């Protein structure tokens, strides 16, 4: 029953963009119908998913698929349900947002196309989450990947969009091919394409290869450092509601895959968990470090996805370590942290992208240093963005704090009562996570401050307007979710508990309520809100009469908006500190003479892996390939010589 609901949701999502194709190019019926269908699908699928948390997981569905090795097998366990919920809620809210952000009336040529692919994207992701057969999984995976590519390149007349589209496409294909290899290896161990247990003891080398391929394939999708190369560009260039889904949901399919493979590995060696933890830590720190250097609002948010996926991986690493050493509390806390952070990141990142989209829609630029002072012109957006910003920094009393707390607890629990020295890794992971949190705060202080606070730095900012309701409503919903999860995490414990049980298999289960101070977190959050409320009330009474004046200018007579601290200057200290990984580029003039002419200074932080490493490396490979063109130089004598050579070689092969 639950499975059928989800399947129905997937089908509705897949078809949501189809009616629009035959309806008028100018009318609004198509787009409303698309959102409506997606909403209906989301309602059905979410119902199915939520019902799963309570009850016993069903036996699943299956239908024959007359292709070798393939089966339309569907299974809805709590792990899948967690992701189903995220896929559908995220996609629906983004679709709603799109009604105002990308209305058909303003985009007559690509609006219908975009909605078609958007629906397919949601359907593909839904399929990935519930597939219980490798071929079916890959089907959903690729539909998702291609639909995402086509949505991302909606505005393909722009060169930079095409470029990031290509990078994304290549990256996702490399991921898909690693999954080909992974599933075929799994088949060579288990003998089937079903998601059965992989015996790591009997097949240590093969199982390690499976693990490595899973990290590669799913890590590419999840955007873990250094496999994140496609991510910043793609998120920055896609239409914003697509960026929101890509960042909020699509990346999580990589997480889902790794979680699923983690569940399949029977008795994994400790190093695997350590690798995931280490990758997560590197990703988290470098992700946020790169984010600080950005001055494109969406690119900045994109790097924060790298960071947050890193945090998720850290949780997953803890869970894997717990599985290896037989510590159910590590499994419970690590996995609950990872999964809850998956939700949370989906929520606040979508919220932030929506906020960024409102800004872009209102001002026409995503360059942070051209903005400023939008808090006055867009009060709702600014409050909602601030909620998202606070949440993503992991600050209480919002949701980001809760999931990070779980990860902290998981890491902390591993400090005590263990043998061996691997706890040093978890020990250093804790301050790493703290560093990430602090850097994230710095980064969002910069972003929020430069965009919404102070005064406008350009004409773009001067004519901003508040977003329309289809854009505001999804943000309100997401902000509310941030608060609810942050204040009352206990509400979500059953879902997480169910997933932990489904994941750990034979490890004895300890419920999350016993492992983490859920109710006391609520108390702390309530206390904080109460004290803030009291303080605000008190201050409000004292501030009935205030005098206003200009900002203190240290006696300088004519301050201008351009003298404000820009986001780049704000970040400069930190980018300099991290310059050993960021390699920032600066274009600084040399000033000569007593009265130098007007000049300019610019700095940017390109992606170290993509722009500094991969592109040059691939260029070199490409040059070598181009050099090999002499093979086909048009000379028929040469061609005939190849044939002779082939014969001689083969005759010598085995005389």
């Amino acid at each position: 029953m639950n499975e059928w609901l989800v399947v129905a949701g997937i089908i509705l999502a897949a078809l949501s963009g189809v009616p629009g194709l035959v309806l008028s190019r100018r009318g609004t019926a198509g787009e409303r119908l698309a959102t409506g269908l997606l909403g209906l699908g989301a309602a059905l699928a979410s119902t199915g998913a939520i019902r799963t948390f309570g009850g016993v997981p069903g036996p699943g569905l299956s239908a024959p698929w007359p292709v070798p090795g393939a089966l339309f097998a569907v299974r809805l366990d709590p792990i899948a349900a967690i992701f189903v919920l995220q896929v559908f809620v995220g996609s629906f809210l983004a679709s709603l947002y799109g009604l105002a952000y990308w209305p058909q009336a303003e985009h007559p040529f690509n609006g219908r196309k975009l909605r078609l692919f958007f629906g397919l994207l949601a359907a593909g992701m839904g399929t990935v989450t519930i597939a219980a057969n490798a071929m079916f999984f890959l089907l959903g995976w690729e539909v998702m990947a291609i639909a995402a590519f086509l949505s991302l390149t909606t505005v393909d007349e722009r060169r930079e969009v095409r470029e990031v589209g290509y990078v994304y496409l290549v990256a996702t294909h490399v991921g898909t091919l690693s999954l080909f290899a992974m599933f075929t290896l799994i088949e060579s161990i288990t003998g089937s394409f079903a998601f059965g247990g992989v015996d790591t003891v009997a097949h240590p080398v093969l199982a390690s290869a499976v693990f490595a391929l899973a990290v590669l394939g799913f890590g590419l999708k999840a955007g873990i450092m250094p496999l994140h190369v496609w991510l910043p560009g793609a998120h920055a260039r896609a239409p914003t509601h697509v960026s929101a889904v890509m960042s909020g949901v699509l990346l999580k399919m990589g997480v889902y895959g790794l979680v699923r493979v983690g569940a399949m590995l029977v008795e994994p060696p400790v190093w695997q968990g350590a690798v995931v933890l280490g990758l997560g830590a590197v990703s988290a720190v470098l992700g946020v470090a790169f984010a600080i250097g950005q001055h494109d609002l969406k690119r900045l948010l994109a790097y924060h996805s790298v960071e947050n996926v890193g945090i998720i991986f850290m949780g997953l690493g803890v869970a894997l370590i717990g599985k290896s050493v037989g510590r159910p509390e590590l499994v419970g806390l690590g996995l609950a942290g990872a999964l809850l952070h998956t939700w949370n990141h989906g929520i606040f990142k979508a919220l932030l992208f929506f906020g960024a989209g409102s800004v872009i829609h209102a001002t026409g630029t995503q360059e942070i240093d051209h903005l400023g002072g939008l808090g006055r012109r867009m009060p709702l957006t600014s409050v909602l963005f601030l909620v998202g910003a606070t949440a993503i920094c992991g600050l209480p009393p919002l949701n980001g704090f809760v999931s990070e707390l779980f990860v902290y607890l998981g890491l902390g629990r591993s400090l005590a009562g263990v043998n061996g020295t691997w706890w040093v890794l978890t020990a250093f992971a804790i301050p790493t996570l703290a560093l990430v949190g602090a850097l994230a705060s710095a980064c969002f202080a910069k972003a929020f401050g430069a965009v919404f606070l102070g005064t406008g730095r350009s004409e773009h900012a001067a004519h901003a307007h508040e977003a329309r309701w289809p854009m505001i409503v999804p943000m309100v919903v997401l902000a509310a979710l941030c608060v609810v999860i942050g204040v009352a995490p206990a509400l979500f414990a059953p879902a997480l508990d169910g997933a932990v049980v489904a994941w750990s298999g034979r490890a004895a289960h300890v419920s999350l309520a016993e492992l983490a101070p859920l109710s006391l977190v609520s108390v702390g959050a309530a206390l904080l809100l109460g004290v803030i409320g009291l303080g605000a009330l008190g201050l409000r009474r004292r501030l009935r009469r205030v005098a206003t004046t200009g900002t203190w200018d240290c006696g300088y007579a004519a301050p201008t908006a351009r003298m404000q601290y820009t986001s780049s200057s704000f970040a400069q200290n930190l980018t300099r500190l991290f310059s050993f990984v960021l390699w920032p580029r600066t274009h600084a003039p040399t000033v000569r003479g007593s009265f130098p002419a007007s000049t300019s200074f610019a700095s940017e932080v390109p992606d170290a892996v993509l722009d500094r490493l991969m592109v040059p490396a691939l260029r070199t490979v490409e040059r070598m390939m181009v050099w090999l063109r002499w093979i086909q130089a048009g000379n028929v004598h040469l061609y005939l010589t190849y044939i002779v050579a082939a014969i001689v070689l083969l005759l010598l092969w085995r005389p």
Partner: protein
Amino acid sequence: MALALVLTPLAFAALGALVPSQRWRPWLVPVCGATHLALVAFALREPTVTGVGGYLALDHLGRLILGFISVLYFLSSIYAPGYLALRTERENRVFTAGIMAVLGVMSLVTLSQHLGLIWVAMEANTLATAPLIYFNKNARSIEATWKYLLIGSVGIALALLGTFFLAYGAVATGADSSLFFSDLVKAAPHISKPWLHAAFVLLFVGYGTKMGLAPMHTWKPDAYGEAPGLVGVLLAGGLTSCAFLAMLRFVQICTAAGEGAFAREIMVAFGLFSMAVAAVFMARQRDYKRMLAYSSVEHKGILVLGVGHGGAGVFGAMLHLVNNGLTKGVLFLSAGNIHRAFQSKLSDNVSGAIRRVPVSGALFLAGFFAITGSPPFGPFVSELTILRAAMNGQQYLVGALFLVALVVVFFGMGATVLAVVQGEPPKSAPETSFKDRLVTVASPLAFMALVLLLGLYIPPSLSTLLHNAAAFVSITP
């Protein structure tokens, strides 16, 4: 019956040469294709089809490939009238006759049961296709035809030498066998091993040249690049499949002789090498028709690689033969349309195909996804099957190299295809009157539909054909 399958298209070809009307002559092609398809459909229902004293017969391998070629031919023949109507400046008598004769000689290959006859049929194929490549009659097409003929003839000569070697091994020194394939397979264990090895090498290189395996592939980019898209489909899907069939006959003999490992090793090596060479040349490939030629080299490599794995790999190769041929139909025909719409086959001068010719542009993109092994299209299933054969056979290194080659191919092909399809048409591109019309898109659309279908559903009848063919080649009852 068997003879009818060969002679009917030849008769149509003769008729085509006689019809005086430049305008109506091309309509014979779809009629010929449909007639042949009907005959094949009838023949496939028959339990046994033989003719000319056993020289012609349909065995399991022949059934699959004949059926496939007939479908491929019929679907692409729909394109011919629309295409030739656009090329009224060219005399099409030779072209029309040639293209129908090709169907006859391709059928002959699939039906040949004799060592010598299959060679004659392959030679006839080479000759029948040469005028098709020459269709444009300009300096570039002459050069392409010259290379095609010279390299193809050398290949065919080698195949003949190999045929003699095999016959010598079978008749003069070893078993006393007739040169019918069924007898050769039975007598294979007694064939003199040195002669068999040398014969296999010569035949492999000879027919490999016709198939376009690297390093004997050099004629392909030139021929595919200069020939009309329609001819590209027939070469990439039909003619090379015929060469593959001929090669499989000898693989079968080798296997029966207990020398299967020798043959398979060679096939895996050449399969991987072909993929690698194709990958190298697809990087930065500005000419999108030549790119398709290299893609063909790559996929012929995949075919022999699949057979080289044996077991499930042979089935995968059979399936891939079908999938690759059909997908090439999409790609060559949509590329042909784009070529016509932009008057250029260089990606420097072509962009925004999806804006100027939306259907062809979309089909080109979809065909690209299909050919690179993306689900839910057919080639995904077959490529994954071949990969599974490698992994389950514990050929991990081969599997890894296979995947690496696919990645590199994707890098190169993706850049070119996206450059062609996306963006806006360049300002410098000449305005052309070419638009997507039913006659020019019906055929690639039909190909695309089949490719998609085969990814989601393999009909039981096709499945039986594939399984029988695979079992037949691997000599398992």
